[in-house]
């Protein structure tokens, strides 16, 4: 599966990761989901990244949580834009952008999860992941950068 995401959206995620460093940032990804069948690779298209508050009450440099009220607001925003919430992003300060066991335990299949690594100096590249339906592991998605928002 491929994740198509605009350069400006990637930049927005990296700026968010830098802004809240050394804490983890988090947000929702609004867009569309392609038809999943055997004839063509499925695609998630990200139109907008919505920066959200990290609602974790402690260890915010190692944990993030998106509150239910923020989820509800994102769902409404997506519906108003005729989009879906198709994924979420967060940062791993000073750690690689690879899902942790904590991420796996708390993720949902179907959604794409974008992780940004960030350090005191810079925000690194993003990687995107999809949790298998049986929750056994994540599969990495190909990221297709596009100049204009789809």
């Amino acid at each position, binding site marked *: 599966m491929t994740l198509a995401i605009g350069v400006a959206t990637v930049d927005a995620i990296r700026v968010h990761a830098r802004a809240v460093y*050394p804490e*983890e940032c*988090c947000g929702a990804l609004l867009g569309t*989901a392609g038809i999943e069948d055997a004839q063509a690779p499925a695609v998630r298209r990200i139109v907008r990244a919505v920066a959200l508050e990290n609602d*974790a009450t402690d*260890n915010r*440099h*190692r*944990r*993030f*949580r*998106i509150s*239910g*009220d923020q*989820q*509800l607001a994102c*769902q409404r925003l997506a519906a108003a834009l005729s989009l*879906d*919430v*198709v994924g*979420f992003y*967060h940062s*791993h*300060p*000073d*750690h690689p952008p690879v*899902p*942790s*066991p*904590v*991420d796996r*335990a*708390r*993720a*949902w*299949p*179907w*959604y794409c*999860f974008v992780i940004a690594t960030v350090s005191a100096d810079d925000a690194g590249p993003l990687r995107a992941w999809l949790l298998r*339906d*049986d*929750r056994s592991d994540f599969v990495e998605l190909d990221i297709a950068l596009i100049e204009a928002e789809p």
Partner: protein
Amino acid sequence: MSPVVHLPAPLRATAADSSEIQVTGSTVSDVLTELVRLSPNAAPYLLDPEGCVRRYVNIYVNQEDIRVLEGLSTRLGPHDEVIILPAIAGGVTTLTSRPA
């Protein structure tokens, strides 16, 4: 008329690609049970292997989190709306101080 359940995108495929489905039931628990009966593929998203509602599921009734209502026992009327959303959380594994 039955309560309407609004589904997040991952569950729409389990309900004929519809973002909402009418499900009979007089409590949230009843509605979830009926939803899983109608759409068995929704079960792994909503229920743990013991059949209890997963911890990382948010359920609202008419915009109110059922945690501040009566939980799964919250009673529903025919015009009530049930909204199911993921509770997303995570982070890096270690809780030690950051590497130098």
